[in-house]
């Protein structure tokens, strides 16, 4: 199957021809019933994943983590420690998979690259005036180019939620297209900040908008607002990538971010992936967790499965 986004726009060229046609397309997407969506997400949340399935899910989840630090107080030392953790999540067990990536601010990309060099762990950088996205397009693009120049493998951009909520869909679209271009070979994750879009209808529309504009990943949140990734909004985005591939042949990844802290949570998300988008997405090329504390819980659960006894926080590293 095609794995680049280049043909996406091709299949739906007319849609993005004007603000009007884009609006008509997005508003013509099937509506989302809140109660039904949340009930489905909750129902999948009752799946009981045990023993071998749990072991599989934990390793898969670890391999999908974008280990993240996005603090004003980030220092090279902190980022190096994070990189080390991404490469060897559990120093006591070298069979533990590496995480998918480390995720940092643009000015930390070079440091991060160094820390994970040779491991296969990717470096993702937030950009476009993360997290608010309130800057001129030039500034945002400069931010992106800066990260790419420093070696970022992946760019996590934020959309202009203000423009989206004001109905200026074409503006949002064109901005994503420009960022995609500026990203070059780096894979582009488009963050919607679903908590600010507020309605599921908006999240569905934003998902299609992002995919039409060439997103490689659609991502729920920055982790900086009150409501971040939820099973329901992630389920909805999984439906969107599933339907988008059915319609265009282009596969797009999904990244829930923020608020996923326990193994139990992560496994529920993997169940959502498995039973909504399907097995094609059960790979860190197509699904990620934007998280930080999640990794240690996954490691403790992994140790528990291996040894039969419960682990404790002193047996995983605090980085």
């Amino acid at each position, binding site marked *: 199957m095609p794995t680049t986004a280049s043909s996406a726009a091709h299949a739906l060229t007319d849609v993005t021809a004007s603000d009007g046609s884009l609006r008509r397309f997005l508003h013509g997407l099937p509506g989302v*019933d*809140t*109660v*039904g969506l*949340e009930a489905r*997400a*909750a129902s999948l*949340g009752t799946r009981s994943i045990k023993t071998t399935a749990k072991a599989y899910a934990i390793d898969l989840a670890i391999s999908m983590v974008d280990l993240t630090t996005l603090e004003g107080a980030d220092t090279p030392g902190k980022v190096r420690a994070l990189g080390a953790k991404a490469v060897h999540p559990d120093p006591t067990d070298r069979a533990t998979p590496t995480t998918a990536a480390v995720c940092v601010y643009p000015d930390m990309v070079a440091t991060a690259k160094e820390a994970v060099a040779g491991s296969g762990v990717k470096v993702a950088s937030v950009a476009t005036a993360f997290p608010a996205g309130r800057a001129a397009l030039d500034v945002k693009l400069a931010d992106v180019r800066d990260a790419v120049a420093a070696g970022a493998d992946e760019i996590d951009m934020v959309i202009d939620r203000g423009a989206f909520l004001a109905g200026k869909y074409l503006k949002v679209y064109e901005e994503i297209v420009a960022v995609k271009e500026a990203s070059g070979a780096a894979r582009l994750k488009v963050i919607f900040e*679903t*908590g600010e*879009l*507020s*309605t*599921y209808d*908006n*999240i569905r529309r934003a998902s299609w908008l992002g995919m039409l504009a060439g997103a490689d990943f659609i991502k729920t949140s920055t982790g900086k607002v*009150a*409501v971040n990734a*939820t*099973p*329901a*909004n992630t389920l909805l985005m999984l439906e969107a990538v599933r339907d988008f591939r059915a319609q265009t042949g282009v596969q797009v990844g999904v990244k829930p971010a923020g*608020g996923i802290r326990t193994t139990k*949570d992560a496994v*529920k998300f993997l169940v959502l992936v498995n039973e909504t988008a399907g097995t094609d997405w059960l790979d860190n090329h197509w699904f990620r967790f934007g998280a930080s504390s999640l990794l240690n819980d996954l490691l403790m659960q992994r140790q528990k499965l291996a040894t039969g006894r419960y682990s404790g926080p002193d047996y995983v590293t605090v980085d």
Partner: protein
Amino acid sequence: MSDKPKKAHKGEQGHGDGAAEHRRLSVLKTYKLYVGGKFPRSESGRVYEVTDSKGTWLANAPRASRKDARDAVVAARKAFGGWSGATAYNRGQVLYRVAEMLEGRRSQFVQEVADAEGLSRSKAAEQVDATIDRWVWYAGWTDKIAQVVGGGNPVAGPFFNLSTPEPTGVVAVLAPQESSFLGLVSVVAPVIATGNTAVVIASERSPLPALSLGEVLATSDLPGGVVNVLSGGTAEIAAPLAAHQDVNAIDLAGAGEELAKELEIAAADNLKRVLRPQPVDDWSATPGIDRMTAFLETKTVWHPTGALGASGSSY
């Protein structure tokens, strides 16, 4: 119908005594069925003699057949959509209009009830007045019954639902045998007040007030077919109605014990709602709502509510 020797028509008494002054010969009314807003004779062409309580001939009433019953059901079914779909306010207005029309023909009904039930004029007048008032009472119920027997249900979960009464459909009504007018209206008005349509079998012995009521209904803005009045043998007409697959309910008020049981058994074929005969001492007593609720279905409609936005759920 009766073994008793028939007397001549009341209006003709004194006729033939050779008196020099010739009293004007009155014009007799041909009583007809009321079906689908029209006044047909029985398709069978049969009539039977109706007498007053003393056995004096009053009229020949149509003796409805099973085919008349069938036609009446067709008319009632055809009328159901419009009548049940009318606003409750509109139904109330129509029922009130029936009362107005009756008031204008009060003396006619007093005479007919007096003849039918062997009552003095003043007693008959009480019956007619109570009957008119009964229409007024039910006219006021049309837009209240849903509030009294329906309502919202506080379900646990992100839903709300509403239970609403709806008319059952076509109701066969066996009018009471003794109370030819007040009893009749007391069973017909609650059926149609809520939006059902009715096929009514008049009191077998005293069908004339019922047949005359048809004339009133026809001039009261009541759509044709909402009430259909048949006269004749109660058992003969009721049997096909009880078995009819397009009749939704049956009120057995005018059936004796044995007939009621037979009809209830027949009614089971399509699970008609059956209102069994109950002893009524005094039809003039204020009715409760039971005769309305007997022919109402409760429909409960669920709707999701949920949160305003996508921010409510968590895991």
